[in-house]
């Protein structure tokens, strides 16, 4: 053979072998997790329920994880709860994580019947009664969604025996709520039946959780009842900085046409409430449109970040930053990359994107592994241990990624953890020539941290809860020994 023919032969062999190489990146049951500067501390299988929001609460001398679930799967719409022996629609898991190496599953509260996004009880937030202005001081309140039809408040002072307090029902959808524990003001992501969008905001005073007081409906002009013309992108979720910061940051869109909306909280709460276009515009300070390729799942504010590089500048050495996390929704990279963005909102009417972060696809052939690859959500704890220093990003089949964000102009990955799959990890499929082709991969969906520094990640594909800690040089970023 001539040299050229030999080269062609080698190229052919490589091309034939390449799918095998990519295939080798697929996870298999029994293989160890993949990790750098993070390690596994403990796990709970969460009864093999697809998981969304974890919220970790320091409750007396215990640490309790409250975990919201999506609906069940077509194969198992209502998994059996081993504690009751009954099939229960996915709802809320309550897990004692005081000893993170030995999590104790305390209770499952069933949610709405339905599969995937249609059922379950995805979202959960916790406030102590003693923190709320009019709460029962002995109570611990859990605000959760009930599928798409209601918001519920439970007393979980005894987390093994929760008691339903009240219900806000009659909705066509719900999603990623925010609740200020010091004021009781709640920004409920709801689908009010007469609005033209699936998701908008209902602002409630939940300072006395037993007696919810509605303040107003809020959304974008064009979404309100009776309007015509184009309907703006639906809400994903807001995060408020409370009365002291007087801002609420709303993220709109999921994986398309998203934007960040900066809202004057005081005007929102106390301004005219009738949902006219003018009244809806009134509390808005500015909007920052994103690419049509990206949406805003999480808009996490970090006001007043000192920027080392700007330390000697006479002005602008501290910046107000919002971290925006897109949500990937299609399996196997069938959409533009969904990732993480950092916006400088110091000059509020001229917010500007300053940096971005994504997992390098080639570092794990993630488009070939199966399921979603891209970002979904970030940790939202504002506890000092990580706030404005590190962010943890759920990245579906790339697991959780730990970022050093001390310089938000140049975020840097300092660790990651991709859990192993198990026998219960659910498949994810794409259409090939009209037929389903399925793969099994971890789908790290959401992440949260606690004040001790543990990192909690949960899996959308039923693999459960993984509790992690930082190791090696990543600990120094947070100032941990």
């Amino acid at each position, binding site marked *: 053979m*001539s040299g050229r*023919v030999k080269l062609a032969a080698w190229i052919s062999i490589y091309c034939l072998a390449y799918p095998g190489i990519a295939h080798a990146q697929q996870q298999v049951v029994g293989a160890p997790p993949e990790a750098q500067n993070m390690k596994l501390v403990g796990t709970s299988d969460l009864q093999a329920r697809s998981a969304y929001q974890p919220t970790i609460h320091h409750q007396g001398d215990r640490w309790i994880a409250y975990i919201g679930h999506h609906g069940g799967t077509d194969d198992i719409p209502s998994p059996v709860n081993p504690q009751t022996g009954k099939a229960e629609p996915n709802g809320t898991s309550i897990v004692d994580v005081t000893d993170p190496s030995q999590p104790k599953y305390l209770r499952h509260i069933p949610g709405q019947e339905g599969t995937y996004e249609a059922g379950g009880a995805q979202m959960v937030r916790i406030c102590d009664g003693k923190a709320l202005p009019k709460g029962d001081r002995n109570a611990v309140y859990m605000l959760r969604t009930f599928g798409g039809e209601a918001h519920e408040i439970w007393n979980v002072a005894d987390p093994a025996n929760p008691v339903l307090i009240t219900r806000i029902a009659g909705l066509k959808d719900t999603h990623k709520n925010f609740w200020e524990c010091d004021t009781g003001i709640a920004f409920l992501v709801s689908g009010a039946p007469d609005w*033209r969008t699936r998701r908008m905001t209902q602002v409630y005073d939940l300072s006395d959780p037993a007696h919810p007081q509605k303040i107003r409906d809020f959304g974008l002009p064009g979404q309100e009842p009776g309007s015509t*013309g*184009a309907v703006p992108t*639906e809400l994903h979720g807001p995060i408020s900085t409370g009365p002291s910061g007087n801002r609420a940051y709303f993220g709109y869109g999921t994986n398309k046409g998203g934007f960040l909306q900066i809202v004057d909280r005081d005007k929102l709460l106390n301004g005219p409430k009738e949902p006219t276009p003018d009244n809806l515009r009134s509390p808005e300070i500015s909007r920052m449109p994103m690419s049509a390729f990206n949406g805003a799942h999480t808009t996490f504010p970090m006001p007043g970040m000192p920027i080392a590089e700007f330390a000697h500048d006479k002005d602008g050495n501290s910046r107000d930053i919002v971290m925006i996390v897109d949500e990937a929704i299609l399996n196997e990279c069938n959409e533009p990359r969904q990732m993480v963005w950092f916006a400088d909102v110091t000059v509020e009417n001229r917010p500007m994107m300053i940096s971005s972060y994504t997992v390098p696809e080639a570092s794990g052939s993630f488009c070939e592994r199966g399921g979603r690859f891209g970002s979904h959500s970030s940790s939202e704890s504002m506890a000092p241990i990580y706030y404005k220093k590190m962010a943890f990003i759920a990245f579906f089949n790339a697991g959780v990624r730990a970022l050093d964000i001390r310089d938000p102009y140049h975020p840097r990955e300092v660790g990651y953890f991709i859990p192993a799959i198990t026998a219960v990890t659910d498949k994810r499929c794409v259409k090939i*020539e*009209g037929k389903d082709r399925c793969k099994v991969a971890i789908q790290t969906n959401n992440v949260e941290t606690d004040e001790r520094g543990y990192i909690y990640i949960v899996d959308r594909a039923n693999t459960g809860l993984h509790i992690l800690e930082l190791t090696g040089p990543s600990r120094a970023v947070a100032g941990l020994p």
Partner: protein
Amino acid sequence: MRRELVIATAVVALGALSGVAAYEHAASRQDEAGWREIAWPFPRDGWPAGKAFHCGTAACGGDIEVYVRPKIGFCNCDRGVADDDEVDRVADLDLMSEHFAPLAPGHVVQLADMPGRIRAYDLKMSDGSRHAAFGIAVSRRCDLLIAVAHGKGAPPELRRAVLDFLGSSKMTGWITAAMDGR
């Protein structure tokens, strides 16, 4: 041996190019009812461009344009296109104008075996002219197929012409293939 390989490769490549050219030519031809494929007229947005068609014959009831494309993953996976608000929200009317108002409640419709809804609108264009328009959204699981049509004729004729065209075997085949990612 090497020369034969080169010749064979060239023949295959030329054949493939000829096939593509023939297909393109056939696709751009006007069909019996007067429909002709035209270039997608809108700037890039969140979804890939779809197909655009024009019909200017009396059989269509006058000048009509139809734009059709899949929006993969954009549908409520369980409810599908359950109400008219969903059609307002997703049906691409805003590509033509931000200003549109429904003329009446929508109706159930089926395209390529996918259920959904069709709704009539009054579309106010940037030059002040008004057009009748129809927005159509049908779904399969979490995926949407969107069609939007506008013309200067009366709404009933426009609706009939658009549904006849989208229900043709050629369009049904394309819609099915597009939804399957082919």
